[in-house]
């Protein structure tokens, strides 16, 4: 269990995260939603121990995140960042194998090879192993990094997976595929914490939702509790209508198109 106890995060005297408490359990996917600049990525960086909160504490299984050494952390949790910078012509397989570095002894074992092919396959990159990363499309590159991050924790049944906007730039199929993989890993006993923008994906895949506004916890609960017209309006300033899917009991968020008078554009 990941427990976040009244954490704040301050940079240059400006509070970016304000007194956020929450908990996430293995077997569940927690989605973090909020407007641009609400503090979602910052919060994620506090949860995965990339940054240390100015006050408050994050514990994993009762142990403070700051007590783990880096290698231990790398074996326990993996993070898919929002953007990646790879300028060298690595092959897809080489990049995915980087996810295995925390586990390799001297050189890649058979087990590592097997995991890499497995994560390539599930990310729809089965025949991409030899190709140069730099020649892939943006969406394909994104999937390579997903495969790398999955490879990092694939054989760690108690791992925590952090995903910062994992479906940005992916086509419909791989948006679904990515979250379905995350969900399946939860069913296997892992924990997934993902920053997401599409509230309908949140409704379909997340078990818990944290709504952030100006660095504060605005709402925290199940999708059906959190995704309602009033709270969505509070947080996004967008008018929506919510319906319930009678097959899945998931809320459906219908947005109302906004009109801008073209004569006001100059």
């Amino acid at each position: 269990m990941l427990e976040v106890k009244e954490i704040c995060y301050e940079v240059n005297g400006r509070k970016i995260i304000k007194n956020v408490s929450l908990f996430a359990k293995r077997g569940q996917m927690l989605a973090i939603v909020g407007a641009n600049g609400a503090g979602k990525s910052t919060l994620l960086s506090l949860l995965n121990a990339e940054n240390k909160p100015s006050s408050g504490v994050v514990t994993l299984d009762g142990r403070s995140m700051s007590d783990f050494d880096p290698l231990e952390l790398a074996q326990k949790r993996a993070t898919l960042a929002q953007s990646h910078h790879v300028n060298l012509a690595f092959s897809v397989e080489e990049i995915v194998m980087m996810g295995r570095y925390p586990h390799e002894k001297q050189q890649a074992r058979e087990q590592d090879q097997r995991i890499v092919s497995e994560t390539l396959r599930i990310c729809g990159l089965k025949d991409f192993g030899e190709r140069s990363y730099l020649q892939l499309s943006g969406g394909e590159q994104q999937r390579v990094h997903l495969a790398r991050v999955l490879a990092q924790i694939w054989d760690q049944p108690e791992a925590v997976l952090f995903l910062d906007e994992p479906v940005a730039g992916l086509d419909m199929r791989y948006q679904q595929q990515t979250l379905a993989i995350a969900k399946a890993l939860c069913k296997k006993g892992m924990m997934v914490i993902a920053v997401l923008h599409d509230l309908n994906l949140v409704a379909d895949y997340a078990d818990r939702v944290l709504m952030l506004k100006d660095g504060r916890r605005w709402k925290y609960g199940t999708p059906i509790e959190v995704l309602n017209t009033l709270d969505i309006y509070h947080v996004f300033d967008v008018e929506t209508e919510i319906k319930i899917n009678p097959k899945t009991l998931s809320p459906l968020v219908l947005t109302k198109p906004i009109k801008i008078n073209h004569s006001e554009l100059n």
Partner: protein
Amino acid sequence: MIVRSRIDRLPDWLFVENIPDTYDPLSKVTERRIDITDAPIDMQNYLLCSSGLFLMHSRMKFAENVIIDTGIEGESIVSQFIAYQVPGSKLPYQGASRHNIRFIPNSESSYELKSGVEYTYFLIVISKDFYYRLIDRHSVLHEDFVQEIDKGISAKFSEVDMRATPEMHRIIDEILENKKTGEFKRLHTEAKVLELLIYQIEQFNNEHLSNEKLLRHEDIAKLEMARDILENNFINPPMQRELALSVSINESKLRKGFKEYFGCTIYDYVTRLRMEMAKQLLIEDRRTIFDVAEMTGFKHQTNFSIAFKKYFGISPSELT
């Protein structure tokens, strides 16, 4: 509640508004402007009324000192922002804009407004019923304030009025510039009023509690224990008194702390766990409503169906 106001030299009330106390999400929002430019008075007022809520923004300037009487009948929570500017002064707003939140059972008050000074006044009056809908009465954010409200005596959030922040001014502007209509007008106004109250309360609390934590370390551990107990026993959950006893915390502290820390009441937490289980049983395991009601700890199927509909918005029988 009734809100009314008059200027000492005018024969009639500026306005008398009768606002229903009970919050009704379907009620309409009405707006009007009252502008008076008749020496010595120069004022522009904007008024917004809806169930449980009265809101007013005024800009005023007088050529002579005048007295304004404002009366509020009925139990209400009042948030007000006052700014004034003396002509010729270099400072944009002396004393900037000051604000406070007060609870007023019934009040008549008179203010003398000085000649030549430009006043900007923003007032929100909220019925007690609506206030508690916006901010849960058990929230530790306004614990002391709620105690005084319950005693029915006048109270204010902060001993001294506080300085309004740019965030607060931005929200007031958003309320005034809101061009939405119909239901969205109401939604927007409520959203902004709540946001404003939150910033006000946050500022008061930051000032008064300084860096003191709202919850203590030991209390957090106890709340977490309580949550674990509920997770393991939600089908037949303990009474709140028993729960408090088993984690050795006082019952009211448990209730308030739970809500504050986990963002929902103990009751709602149990409901959440039961409804998640019900969802799984109905959708994935295809069990009958009768079975699911029993398995999730409801004694009668009707109670289950009512709780289900309240949580999901549709009845279990409407599932396809």
